[in-house]
């Protein structure tokens, strides 16, 4: 079936592909961290009893969750540099570069999803814990930091990681603005050498192996964390 196919093209382009993979992994890890931090802030805002806090947060989360990631990437890739230029008043403001444009887009996009996971995680902590913390004389901030969030995050770790795996798959979409992530590298070689079948199957295989292994690890973690509940 695969006669006439040239799997040697993969060996020849391994260095370039690994560079692309580093880009993908870097983008994944950094936007995951950024997304979780921003997502926690958003989640706390959404749970706050003040309208000025929860309305903007809810609006943001619902807006981002209704918009396709590709459109969000376009928004940030094309408009953020222009907005920055206007804001800074410097017509020649240094662009933040493609990697950081993508990083900002993914962080802001993922934050909306992480927010919902974290909100559910916080709500899963029994109310008694909050009351107990207040009864002990802790302030709101202390109660969150020392009592609620540590428990919430413990419950959430598997879901946060699963979302991270989805994020890793989603980074392939930077293809639409021509960046060289793993998929971008694969498709550039595929098209230059006319080797689409080999490269795309190889890309699928690599993504599958990485994501499958990661999911397996997450599943093990989940089992460990659910002990004693």
């Amino acid at each position, binding site marked *: 079936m695969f006669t006439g196919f040239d799997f040697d093209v993969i060996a*020849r*382009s391994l260095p*370039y592909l690994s560079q692309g993979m580093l880009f993908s992994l870097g983008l994944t890890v950094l936007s995951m961290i950024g997304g979780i931090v921003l997502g926690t802030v958003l989640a706390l805002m959404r749970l706050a009893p003040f309208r000025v806090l929860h309305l903007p947060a809810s609006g943001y989360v619902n807006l981002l969750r209704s918009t396709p990631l590709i459109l969000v990437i376009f928004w940030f*890739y*094309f408009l*953020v*540099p*222009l907005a*920055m*230029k206007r804001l800074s008043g410097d*017509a*020649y*403001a*240094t*662009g*933040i*570069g*493609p990697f950081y*444009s993508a990083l900002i887009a993914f962080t802001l996009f993922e934050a909306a999803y992480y927010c919902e996971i974290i909100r559910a995680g916080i709500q899963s902590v029994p109310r008694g814990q909050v009351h107990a913390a207040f009864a002990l004389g802790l302030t709101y901030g202390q109660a969150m930091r020392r009592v609620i969030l540590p428990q919430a995050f413990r419950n959430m770790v598997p879901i946060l990681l699963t979302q991270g795996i989805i994020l890793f798959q989603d980074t392939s979409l930077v293809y*639409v*603005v*021509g*960046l*060289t992530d793993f998929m971008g*590298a694969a498709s*550039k*070689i595929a*098209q*230059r050498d*006319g080797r*689409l079948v080999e490269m795309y199957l190889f890309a699928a295989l690599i993504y599958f192996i990485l994501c499958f292994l990661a999911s397996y690890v997450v599943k093990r973690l989940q089992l460990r964390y659910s002990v004693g509940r």
Partner: protein
Amino acid sequence: MNFARPAFVLLAAAAIALPAAAQEGTLKKIKDTGVIKIGHRDASIPFSYLDDKQQPIGYGVDICLKIADAIKAELKLPKLKVEFVPVTSQTRIPILTGGNIDIECGSTTNSVERQKQVAFAPTYFMTGTKIIVKKSAGIKRYEDLKGKTVVFTAGTTNERAMKAYNDAKKLGINFIPSKDHAESFLAVETGRAVAFPMDDILLYSLRASAKNPADYAIIGEFLSDDPYGIMMRKDDPTFKKLVDATVTRLYKSGEINKIYAKWFQAPIPPKGINLGFPMSDALKALIKNPNDKGVEACGKMKC
């Protein structure tokens, strides 16, 4: 990665900063950062494309590297880092105006329409829209495309030329967009589309690197004229002056002939194909009288 280097360049640049002739705009930015960001294409052979080590190379890239040298000399920088950023037909203008690249070296048609957004260096190549077809498809003229599928690279002048022709002649062509020239050509190669309208020089190079070049024909009258220029931000006279002067110097000194021969009349990476494409009269005239007029302000195949 060496993090100390940019800091050193910054210090060095600051130490020798010229008190008079304060640079502004892009030049100032390059001076402050010690980096010039050059936008390149993935598959605009032989203007701007990736070689087998995935490094951007080509006729346009070579000229841009000359420009980088000139900037380095002008700013008296001990070292100027060249950073390549990949762009596509769709992303090149927003990325340039947004500041993520300082200059684009590819196969961009200089048009008055685009001059509302960006500026161009003197034209460095003259080409125009034709179509590539498989010989077996039996397409001899544009009229034969009636009701057929045509692939185009999104964001190109060729897309507009073909669509305008389709509207004028009511051919009812079914258009499919693609991201870059390699992908478009692939659509013709695999039979998904019968034709691909593109600047003829790019079609010749795509055909030359195809598996079976003899299978393809490049046909038709020019549907549009496409003078290529190096693209930079608008309203930055000091930068444009330096870029223009560099290009003009290459033209006057005859250095351009060597660069031209290297890419159009000698074997080029990655496959060692020789395009064998002698310099056109239109380009010779442009080298004699460099100008950055947009295509609307030019005559038929001359500027």
